[in-house]
């Protein structure tokens, strides 16, 4: 099966600044792909080239078999990082305008507004929209022509937790209907819905892997235990006991919170929780991998070179 998006040796220089240093990337059709990277990594630059808004210095992007910048327009929908509309239009008018540009005979305007949660605001001027509403309308205009590939630049970064969840839920619901490629600098957002994750840093692809493989590989063997204040003394005792078992590497106590680094994660998972059985437990949490961990790990010379899974 040919991939939905095929990036080859993508390079972009702005004067002396090399924003993209020539990387390859392949996005499987139908997947939700998280394009992860810190500020200034080159995420927006990559997306702008994919949409034809900017031109690559070298290399190519092929979307659904159409090479970008060669005349034909690939079947994409695009949500820029801060979408900006004509403030004098209403949401419905904007979607009607977009539908006309695509020469759609029966555009699914109501269904799209419904889908992004703007059904009630469709007669309001966009000038009065909040940041979150603009993000929703931005998604709506990208979805309206039912593209085969959806390109989203930091679709949730500017949203509050509820908005973030709503947006990710909508994206999750689109799974299977189209390929979704979205950028973010927060691993947790990618973790929630992605099938596949690519990490970019300083214009280079650091790693591309299936989400589960990536998380398994970089999971931190760290968990945090929090108890009610009454049980704080017992928590200190537990910390000492754990240190003597050899089960853990380190235990750091901070009042009612204990952070434990396990030596053997699987064993620790099975054995530590029962030890807490009679404590008034407030929280027991496995701390997942963070982008920082992955970076530290990958840039550590002791570790293997970047790799591309399956």
């Amino acid at each position: 099966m040919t991939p939905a998006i095929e990036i080859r040796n993508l390079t972009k220089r702005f004067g002396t600044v090399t924003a993209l240093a020539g990387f390859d990337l392949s996005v499987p059709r139908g997947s939700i792909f998280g394009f992860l990277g810190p500020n200034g990594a080159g995420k927006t630059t990559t997306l702008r080239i994919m949409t034809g808004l900017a031109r690559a210095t070298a290399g190519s992007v092929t979307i659904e078999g159409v090479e970008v910048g060669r005349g034909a327009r690939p079947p994409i929908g695009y949500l820029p990082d801060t979408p900006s509309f004509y403030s004098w239009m209403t949401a419905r008018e904007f979607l009607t305008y977009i539908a006309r540009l695509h020469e759609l005979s029966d555009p699914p305007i109501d269904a799209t507004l419904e889908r992004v949660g703007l059904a009630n605001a469709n007669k309001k001027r966009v000038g009065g929209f909040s940041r979150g509403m603009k993000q929703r309308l931005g998604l709506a205009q990208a979805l309206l022509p039912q593209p085969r590939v959806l390109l989203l630049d930091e679709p949730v970064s500017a949203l509050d937790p509820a908005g973030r969840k709503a947006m990710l839920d909508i994206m999750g619901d689109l799974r299977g209907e189209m390929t979704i490629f979205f950028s973010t600098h927060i691993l947790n957002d990618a973790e929630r819905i992605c099938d596949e994750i690519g990490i970019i840093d300083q214009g280079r692809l650091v790693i591309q892997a299936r989400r589960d493989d990536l998380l398994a590989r970089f999971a931190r063997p760290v968990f945090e235990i929090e108890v009610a204040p009454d049980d704080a003394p017992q928590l200190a005792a537990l910390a000492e006991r754990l240190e003597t078992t050899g089960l853990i590497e380190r235990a750091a106590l901070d009042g009612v919170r204990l952070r434990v680094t396990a030596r053997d994660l699987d064993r620790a998972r099975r054995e530590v929780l029962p030890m807490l059985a009679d404590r008034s437990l407030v929280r027991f949490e496995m701390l997942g991998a963070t982008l920082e961990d992955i970076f530290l790990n990958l840039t550590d010379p002791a570790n293997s070179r970047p790799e591309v899974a399956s």
Partner: protein
Amino acid sequence: MMRIFGVQLRKEITELWRTRKLIIVLVVLIAFGLMSPILAKITPDLLESMGEGQMEGIIITIPEPTQKDAIDQLVRNVSQFGLLLAVLMSFGTVVGERERGQAALVFAHPLPREVFVAAKFAAQAIMFAAGLALGALGAYIYTVILFDAPPAGRYLALTGLIYVWLLSLIALSLLASTLGRSMGSAGGLAFVLIVALLLAGSFTNLAPGALLEWGRSIAIKAGSPARWGALAVTVVVTALAVGASCIILRRQEID
């Protein structure tokens, strides 16, 4: 292509209407159209009343104003305010959409950039056609009331020449708008281009500005020579500016 142009033109005209630009242009051009013959009529009285008592012994004879004066006033007012409006209304159109980020949104859809430029030019052209037509009609009616009727065909030729001249200003502002990286630089560039165009008028009869004098001469039967060369230059300048805007925007990277 034509369908998309229609969609885009509709968007532009709606925008001019909703952002009040259309109404401003109509009101200003109609106001100056109506005022021109009135000003021509009352200017001698004004001068007389100002001169009263101050220049005793000196008898100033001010000739009775005619429709020629009304037409002079019209050409002067409409060219000054038309120029101002043409630049103000169009120098921000392309750069504004790029700066605000609307261009990044719409160019990801199947909207060819040359259609985007052409629709902007067409919308401005329609707006000024309406404004100039109504302004000139108003001026004509008042000229008929206050003086006597100028020959309609000649008057129409004058209006047409003013319009062609205005189109070249719009096209140059649009070019500045496409070239400019920011609203400020586009404004500065538009100013430079227009000043260059006006200066060219003092060196050669081929500059667009010669159309105004030609139009005036036709309307008042002054018998000045025809300026077909200037007409050709103006049309070419307009077409080149619009064409260049299309090519430049096509090559530009959109932020």
